[in-house]
């Protein structure tokens, strides 16, 4: 028996409404040894990101004379999914995700301010429960801001699927594996420019617009949450000092 993604009462299996995001949780500045780091949970999807740089490139031959090089490493922990996957091998799917993360963040980071340097982003998926790419993008965004790297805007991402005649926001693993078309959208929320758009499976063109609109709405909600977190985390403490 196939279980319904959205019940007749309008609820999903985890109790959300179709247009509802999962609960998310952020933390930054987790490590001393890197310039910036972030941990993001969206539902049960968990992602840990570290950012080093802008720094002297480790391979000098790779440096560019006019801007910084952004390199991304994407790894998925063996214990992250239901079935344990053996030791990490270079995985084509992972390389693809890394490339798309790199393109996404080169659009937001002001790389021209840092010629001949390198910004290294390491993404570690700790637990997978759907919308992995979106969670990774949100986590990288926070880690970059934590590292004090100048960006034109946040990059926030969100996924949505399309089932029956309506889109559903922020898919979890169960919904993802139901085989519905899934759209992941990354947005610069201030200008509402789309920097990344990834599509899994076929979706009728007529349905793309409502799905994309829902994604955009989700991205803007993520932005509100992330911005509120960053605003509170970047305050300096004040302490009385003796008058000189």
């Amino acid at each position: 028996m196939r279980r319904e993604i959205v019940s007749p009462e309008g609820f999903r299996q985890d109790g959300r409404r179709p247009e509802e995001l999962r609960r998310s949780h952020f933390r930054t500045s987790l490590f001393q040894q890197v310039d910036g780091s972030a941990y993001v949970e969206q539902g049960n999807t968990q992602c840990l990101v570290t950012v080093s740089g802008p720094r002297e490139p480790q391979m000098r031959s790779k440096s560019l004379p006019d801007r910084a090089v952004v390199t991304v490493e994407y790894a998925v922990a063996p214990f992250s999914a239901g079935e344990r996957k053996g030791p990490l091998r270079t995985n084509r799917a992972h390389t693809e995700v890394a490339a798309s993360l790199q393109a996404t963040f080169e659009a937001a980071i002001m790389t021209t301010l840092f010629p001949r340097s390198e910004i290294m982003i390491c993404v570690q998926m700790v637990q997978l429960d759907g919308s992995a790419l979106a969670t990774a993008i949100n986590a990288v965004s926070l880690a970059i801001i934590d590292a004090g790297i100048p960006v034109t805007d946040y990059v926030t991402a969100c996924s949505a699927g399309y089932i029956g005649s309506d889109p559903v926001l922020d898919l979890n693993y169960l919904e993802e594996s139901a085989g519905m078309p899934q759209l992941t959208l990354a947005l610069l929320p201030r200008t509402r420019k789309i920097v990344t758009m990834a599509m899994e499976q076929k979706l009728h063109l007529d349905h793309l617009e409502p799905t994309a609109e829902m994604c955009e709405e989700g991205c803007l909600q993520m932005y509100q949450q992330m911005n509120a977190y960053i605003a509170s985390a970047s305050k300096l403490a004040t302490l009385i000092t003796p008058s000189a």
Partner: protein
Amino acid sequence: MARASHLLDSSLDSADGFTDPHGAGAGGPSADTVTPGQALDVETTYLKGHGTFLEDGQLLSSVAGTVYRVNKLVSVKAIHARYSGEIGDVVVGRIMEVGSNRWCVDISARQSAILLLSSVNLPTGIHRRSDETDEAKMRSYFREGDVLSCEVQGFYQDGAIALHTRSLKYGKLADGVMVAVPSALVKRLKSHFVVLDHGVSMILGLNGYVWISRTPSAQEQKAQAHLFAGHHNFYDAPGSTPTAAPKAAEAVAGADEPLDPHAVREQIVRVRNCILGLVERKVMLTDQLIAAVSRTARSLPAKQLLDPDVMDTVILETREQLQQHDE
């Protein structure tokens, strides 16, 4: 991990009773915290500094941090941003690489800084003859891993920082502890060479590297000054005398009785732990603040200061003392 301390945050709300810690009037941070993409509430005639950018005639922040205003220049400084030098800054660095006529120095900037062989004073202060024998001996002056204090001399075209050590104040550092803190938390001071109590000295590098070591005794400093006095420093302005060492010697002249080396070592560690404690609470570091906190911490074993609760108590106590001192 940043520890949000209620002890400190409370002072943010109640501005009365607290002196403005950073001297906002003189280019210090204002209370404003901004996030990337947020419009800075300034007129368009303002100049855009670091951490800002112009879009559609509006000045926006590109980082999350504190807004600084110096006259018409607006900049935003993020806590964890890399060090972007200014000429004349005192920095502490570590040698990463020995090149043909230069050293590459890590000063936590976005590129390795460069210290040319021609920008150093060689030991004993003899003027360098530029020849190959000198270049061959470079590793005997500074080796990979050596820590040194130096000054920002200028910038290269690509933004790399050029350093120099052409003063007695600068040079190789030994027998101490280096702490790396975010450079945005080091306040610009009159002097970054700080003599603390109980035989401990500190170099607060503006790049966020802090060097803590034993204060040399008056005798040692005299001996060093004497060594250099014989060979007049070529690079110094004519008639100038090496000043830094004797001045520092006077500062510790009162403490002539030899200090217990073990006690000094423990005090060094105390200072280190106090700096880490303050940084964890995102407090701007100044010489006086570090001196005050480490003075309060004096009664405690150095190890205990790593306990966040103990550090909270120490900082709270220090704050009370400083308040009383102000009144």
